[in-house]
């Protein structure tokens, strides 16, 4: 019991509650709540490198601790830290859009809700039981409903909130109905129990079992933004506050992929089901790759461009998941997500500052950024090149590992499709680079001041992208 209370999730929840109390005693400057949150999470991130819970499933069968879970817990902590850093820089814009009863009203929640979402994410990556998956997923989703719609004087944010609410609740409906059928036919809620029972489930039940699993796949498809369940993504990403968009596109996607891999794993052991699941995943991956990359081509709004790019990256990740049987497929997906975290947050960090000064997030707002603010421009250049997949960046290595896994499991069609769409990616990512370095500066555009902490983060993320792109062994060692 004590070991359980000391698990990292409870520490994160305690931190959140502590900050909520701090918030109610803070009258003036709310920003140090975010600082306290960042410091607290950095300490918890450090703790995760000390020996913690032993490996294995804990007695009630809900909670699982293994290297993958540990890797993704660190991943979630890191992305929450970066989200809070983004939120700090975004405070000024955010405050304009909330009804100002008293100074700083609403800011505290904006800093604290991501911490509770983080706890939900960490439980999610450790979940070994459908009840646990459902409850922790809802904890996360509920925090995001509030965060997305939280700029209540901004129509875009409200619209995004309502769209996210309806489609999120719809995917919850699919998830629970699918879970119901799987539980009903196997008689177990835990993934281990299901794995044991599946081989003796009568042949006649397989159709019903596929129906249940299919509904669960639909729900997870919504979360990871796989085509054809992606239609909410561009609107929600554009309307939500920028830090929330970043958090949504990184942490939510990663959690979705962890759940996807954990849930399908027991079903892949059944010979009759394996082939069907692989076919479904292959089709999903192919559609997502094509749609995400092609729809990104004509975009003029940078936030929308990143939304379509996030769909495209979901496509590459699905290629990794569809490479069933390849030993390297799990680590490849983990590595890709790690790289995706670094480059996406770097891009959003630059976007927050450009948006703060120019007041918009169109690609044309980046015109001449290379001369107006060389630091931001260099950061964004590295992020874009890595997202596109230029060699010597982490983005290239991620794609390489994914395609290697796909080759091992003979998914040649997906590899060809992936290679073609990477070329598409170069076009739309370099469009931003072109705006920054080859377009003239708008006459009245002011220089963009960048705080020291942000400079530090940009340097750190850029360095990590390049260093892990050349020397990926430390990251891979965590995943094996």
């Amino acid at each position, binding site marked *: 019991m004590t070991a359980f209370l000391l698990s990292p999730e409870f520490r994160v929840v305690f931190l959140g509650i502590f900050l909520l109390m701090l918030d109610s005693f803070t009258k003036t400057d709310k920003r140090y709540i975010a600082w306290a949150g960042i410091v607290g999470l950095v300490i918890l991130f450090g703790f995760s490198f000390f020996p913690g819970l032993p490996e294995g499933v804990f007695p009630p069968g809900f909670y699982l601790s293994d290297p993958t879970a540990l890797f993704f817990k660190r991943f979630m902590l890191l992305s929450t830290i970066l989200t809070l850093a983004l939120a700090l820089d975004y405070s000024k814009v955010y405050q304009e859009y909330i009804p100002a009863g008293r100074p700083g009203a609403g800011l505290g929640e904006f800093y604290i809700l991501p911490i509770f979402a983080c706890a939900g994410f960490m439980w999610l990556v450790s979940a070994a039981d459908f009840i646990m998956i459902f409850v922790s997923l809802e904890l996360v989703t*509920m925090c995001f409903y509030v965060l997305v719609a939280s700029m209540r004087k901004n129509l875009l944010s409200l619209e995004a909130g309502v769209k996210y*609410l309806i489609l999120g609740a719809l995917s919850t409906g699919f998830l629970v*109905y699918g*879970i119901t059928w799987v*539980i009903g036919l196997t008689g177990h809620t835990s993934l281990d129990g299901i794995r044991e029972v599946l081989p003796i489930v009568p042949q006649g039940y397989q159709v019903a079992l596929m129906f249940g699993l299919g509904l669960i796949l639909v729900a997870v498809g919504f979360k990871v933004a796989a085509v054809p369940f992606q239609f909410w993504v561009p609107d929600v990403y554009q309307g939500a506050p920028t830090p929330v968009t970043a958090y949504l596109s990184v942490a939510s996607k990663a959690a979705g992929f962890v759940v996807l891999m954990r849930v399908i794993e027991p079903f892949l052991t059944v010979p009759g089901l394996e082939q069907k699941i692989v076919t479904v995943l292959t089709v999903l991956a192919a559609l997502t790759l094509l749609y995400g990359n092609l729809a990104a081509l004509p*975009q003029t709004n940078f936030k929308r461009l990143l939304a379509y790019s996030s769909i495209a990256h979901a496509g590459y990740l699905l290629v990794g998941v569809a490479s069933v049987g390849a030993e390297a497929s799990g680590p490849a997906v983990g590595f890709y997500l790690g790289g995706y975290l670094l480059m996406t947050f770097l891009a959003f960090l630059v976007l927050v500052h450009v948006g703060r000064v120019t007041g918009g997030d169109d690609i044309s707002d980046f015109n001449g950024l290379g001369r107006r603010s060389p630091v931001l421009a260099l950061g964004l250049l590295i992020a874009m090149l890595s997202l596109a997949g230029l060699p010597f960046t982490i983005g290239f290595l991620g794609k390489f590992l994914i395609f290697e896994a796909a080759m091992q499991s003979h998914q040649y069609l997906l590899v060809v499709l992936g290679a073609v769409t990477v070329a598409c990616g170069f076009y739309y990512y370099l469009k931003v680079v072109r705006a920054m370095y080859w377009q003239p500066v708008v006459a009245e555009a002011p220089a963009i001041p960048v705080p020291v902490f942000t400079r530090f983060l940009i340097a750190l993320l850029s360095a990590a992208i390049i260093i892990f792109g050349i020397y990926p062994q430390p990251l891979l060692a965590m995943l094996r």
Partner: protein
Amino acid sequence: MTPTLAHYLIVSGLLFTIGLAGVMLRRNIIIIFMCLELMLNAANLSLVAFSRYNLTMEGLPNYNGQILVFFIITVAAAEVAVGLAIIVALFRARQTTHVEDLDSMKF
């Protein structure tokens, strides 16, 4: 005629379909939200039916399924609280609860 598992599953399937059709076809956000709750309750009904009719070795119902029902009810209540708050905020800003009016983002 005593009701069997199949009867319960058919009713729950109907509830789920009505809910899904409502989400797809209706244009008022409040009604869409009600249909979403219907979908969750369809799951509750079939969970309870499965757990009542598929007894374990000891002849007891499968309680894990019933536990999940309690969690679904709780989560649905929380979702309504958050959801209605967002819909009210939208109504204050736009004086509408129709999905057709949510079209400010197009490319």
